[in-house]
Each structure stands twice: as C-alpha cells, then as structure tokens.
C-alpha cells in the first residue's frame, strides 16, 4: 500500500506502524461520572466497518507524524490522509466551540 503523507508525499505503508480506529483520538474525560464505562467503550469497542474506515498510522520510519488515514477496508483504497494533530485540534475546537490554530506555521 502507498500512503500519501500530507507533508512528504507518497510513501510505502511499510514505513508506517498501524494503531487502529481514529476514534482513539477521542479520549474520554477522566472526571466524568461514568468515566469507567466511557473508557471501556473508548478502548475496547470498535465500529470495524467493512468500507470506509478512519484509522491511525504512525510514520515511524519517516517524520514520526501520526496520521489519520481514510481507507476502505474492502478495497484498501485511500481517499484522505490528514495529520492526526490537525484532526485532534479540530476535535478540541469543536468541543470547546472555538477555533485554535494548529500551531504549524504557514508554509
């Protein structure tokens, strides 16, 4: 497989390490009343779709970026690749209702 790294271009997937569902970015609030249940669902339950799947890949043999890759689990076609950090920022912004800059300068 080839992953089109948003900063580095096409790279063979063997440069990367796979983690799993990108929902692992959404770590629950440890102080929530039902934190044990939230953490259980977060860590253990998966949609595991047969089709489009958002997932985390780590560019261990590259620039050490964590990426969110949108890949079809039936065809392996990849339709989108984002920096996980940008995705995480966007999620935080959504939650707090404000927009935070990713911290990455304009290139």
């Amino acid at each position, binding site marked *: 497989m080839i992953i089109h790294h948003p900063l580095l271009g096409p*790279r063979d997937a*063997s*440069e990367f390490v796979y983690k799993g569902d990108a929902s692992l970015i959404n770590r629950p609030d440890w102080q929530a009343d039902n934190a044990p249940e939230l953490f259980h669902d977060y860590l253990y339950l998966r949609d595991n779709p047969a089709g489009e799947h958002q997932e985390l890949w780590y560019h*261990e*043999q*590259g*620039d*050490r*970026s964590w990426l969110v890759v949108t890949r079809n689990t039936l065809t392996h076609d990849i339709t989108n690749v984002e920096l996980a950090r940008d995705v995480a920022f966007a999620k935080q912004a959504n939650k707090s209702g404000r927009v935070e*800059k990713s911290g990455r300068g304009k290139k």
Partner: protein
Amino acid sequence: MPDYTLTASTPLDGYSRDFVGVSIHEVNDRAIVSIAVPKHGERELAKLLTSSYQIELPKPGILSVASRDNVVLFNMAQDQYFLVFDYTGNTATSVVRNLLGDTAYLTDQSDSYVWVRISGTNSRCLLERICPLDIHPSVFPVGSVARTVMEHLGTTIIHDAEDSFLLLSARSSAHSFLEAIETSAANTEPVN
C-alpha cells in the same frame, strides 16, 4: 585533576572504499543539532535563523544551505529540524544556542548517526537495491532530503550533488548499515 583523557572514535573508523562506478566513504566532523520549534515560536526562530545563519526554515524534503560553517538545515519531523554544520568539538548545542538563544529547544545529535556518502555513476543503481524511494533526479533533484527505511534501518538520504548521496543512519547499527551498502555495491558492480 583526572589523569585520564578520552579519545573520540568514529562509527566506521573512517571507512572508504571504491567499487567500479561507485565510491563509499564515511563522513565525519559534522555536528547535528536538533532544533525543536516551541509552540507559536516559529516566526521568531525563522527570524533568528535568517539573522544568524542567513538560512531559511525549509519545507519538508528540501535542504536549506548556508555558507557559514557549511550549514545545512532540513526538516526531520513536524516542528523539528536538523542543523548540520562543520564542527569537531563536544558542545555543538552551545554553538547553536549562542546564535539562537532560547527560541528553540536544542538537542545534540552529533553522536547519534553514521554518515556515509555514496558517489559515482553507479550510485543510483546501488541504491536501487535498498532505498524504497524514487531518487531519480526528476523527482529527487540535488538538494532533496528524505527519511525512509533501508534494510530494516531508518535512514535519511540527502541528494547532495550529481550522482552523490549522503546517508544518515543510527550509529549503533553502523556496521550492519555499511554491510547493506557494501553488499549492494558488490551485487550491482558490473561483471567485467
């Protein structure tokens, strides 16, 4: 006062060997300082780099070069750059800190890598056996840099001149890395 002095060694003891069409040399006397950019600190760092080294923060995959100390700057990770320069001392970070102050987090990496230069007309043919990246000059011209994996070892490859490539790989596995290169050279050396 200690009665002892420490002597420095290089990862490959100054290795150098010629094959038909390709030469392999260990490169030494270069310092590497990792520069991590503080949150929201990129602009300030860029300013200081310009004023000190007359060098720009490069985009990933491209070398920035400057004449002072033969400086080369390239991106290693998000918000992290390697500044490479001629230096043989023990305190590379202080050299850089003198110029950049606390606009960046510095980490000495000078002893972390082995440097090997592969040059000659057969260089690409040799690298074809171990380098997964397309290093054809049309897509990886002189001045390009990339990190990838060769024979299970993480490697940064720099196209530093025509038919010449610099490779950086971890120091502890320098001998295995060299063996991978030498084997490639032997396997691709033309039969006379």
